[in-house]
């Protein structure tokens, strides 16, 4: 009986935790999309008003937070100055590819960020502002979608995991 109890608790808690993890993915994606827009806002100000070169801006944004999003900017800034001779697009792509697996972003978000990097730094301030504005707009739309997904799915997964666990335990008993 004792072992059955332990087994049942294990099944319920495992599935419950898995559910919470899936739920947190939806919350994290929304938060990361918001952080990206905030970072782009800083980038836009530094480019349009201060004309600060990218390595300095990217590193500055990278230092403002410790999460995966800040890491993309920090790494891109480092790759631009480490004498490997990478172009901005290459440095951005490399940083994005390395950091992407540790984010909650999906392939649509990746495509937006990848296209953003292709034009980053390669034109005058007006063109850069347009690139940043367009990317921000795309990210806003993704954030709205992510928020809807979050509302739909977070509760479901948070409780769903435990409920599935309990159902399995009841069936087995």
């Amino acid at each position, binding site marked *: 009986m004792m072992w059955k109890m332990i087994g049942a608790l294990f099944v319920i808690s495992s599935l419950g935790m898995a559910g919470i993890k899936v739920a947190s993915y939806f919350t994290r994606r929304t938060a990361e999309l918001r952080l990206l827009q905030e970072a782009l806002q800083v980038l836009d100000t530094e*480019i349009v008003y201060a*004309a*600060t*070169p*990218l*390595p300095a801006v990217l590193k500055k944004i990278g230092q403002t937070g410790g999460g995966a999003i800040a890491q993309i900017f920090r790494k891109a800034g480092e790759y*631009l*100055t480490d*004498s*490997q*001779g990478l*172009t*901005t697009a290459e*440095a951005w792509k490399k940083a994005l590819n390395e950091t992407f697996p540790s984010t909650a972003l999906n392939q649509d978000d990746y495509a937006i960020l990848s296209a953003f990097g292709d034009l*980053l*730094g*390669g*034109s*005058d*301030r007006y*063109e*850069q502002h347009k690139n940043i504005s367009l990317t921000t707009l795309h990210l806003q739309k993704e954030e709205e979608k992510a928020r809807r997904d979050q509302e739909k799915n977070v509760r479901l997964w948070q409780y769903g995991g435990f409920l599935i666990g309990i159902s399995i335990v009841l069936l087995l008993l």
Partner: protein
Amino acid sequence: MLQLSRGLSEILPFLAPSLRDILGRLSPTVVDGLEEVRLRLSRPLSVRWRQNEFFLDMKGELSPLISGAYIVSREEIQKTVQLISQGSIYAFEEEFRQGFLTLPGGHRVGFTGRAVLEGGQLKTLRDISSLNFRIARAVPGASRPLLPYVLDLRNLRPYHTLIVSPPCAGKTTMLRDLVRFLSYGIPELHFPALTVGVVDERCELAACCDGVPQHDLGPRVDVLDHCPKDVGMLMLLRSMAPQVIATDEIGCAGDVTAIWEMVNTGVSIIATVHASSWEQLEERPHLKELIKSKVFQRYIFLSRRKGPGTIESVWNEHREPLVC
């Protein structure tokens, strides 16, 4: 006469990696006398060495012949442009409009490409197709032979001086060295240190990078970077109380007007101008009046006859030769 300082090693990080490999194979003799590195799209990689242009092959060997020369690709040009601009074209809009930018170490990169016009004015350059890395040279002591002629030892100020030379004959190097002498003071001539204001419109004289002069101009120098000369000279006069104002390549009407305003303020002016002879100098429409009115008290003519910085002659305001 002029020597190479630091040089190639400072410009290599700004070149595409494949070009770094080739230039890294240059022999020490070539590196010592290297003046320029030229990249031209789909054309041979070349260098200017001891006043002559040579092509480079894959092994970094110099040749006057095109056959076997390394051809510069579009990707190499693009990478190099990215590297010199830190991947931030927008941060160097003014430099791209002017056609050059300054690297750490004072080295200068000139470029050409497709001009973008707006309202008939050059807005910027796009699709860069040629780059010329000019290796900066600081030659401490280059102007020492000129000091007895340029310094007014009685009034303890330099004369209003015009350094005249054709391009690439060392006039900027000479002016830079004069500024350095004045800013440090010259104890052996009992000449005190003076406050010098430098208007560095072309970012060549002090070659500031992030506000720090890349050449040693001494401790008493205030640099107005990227500022038009006419505006800059008057600004310095009002704001920094200089005893000497130095500027490079005067010639337009605005420069001359500003000099007219300054000659009677007690500030000494040291400037350079493009010309090879008195005849050419007097043909410059705006300078003619300055010469006629004896504004400049010393004229120093330079040439490349015995290498850049060869002093050909020194004249006073009455056009009497002091050195010939």
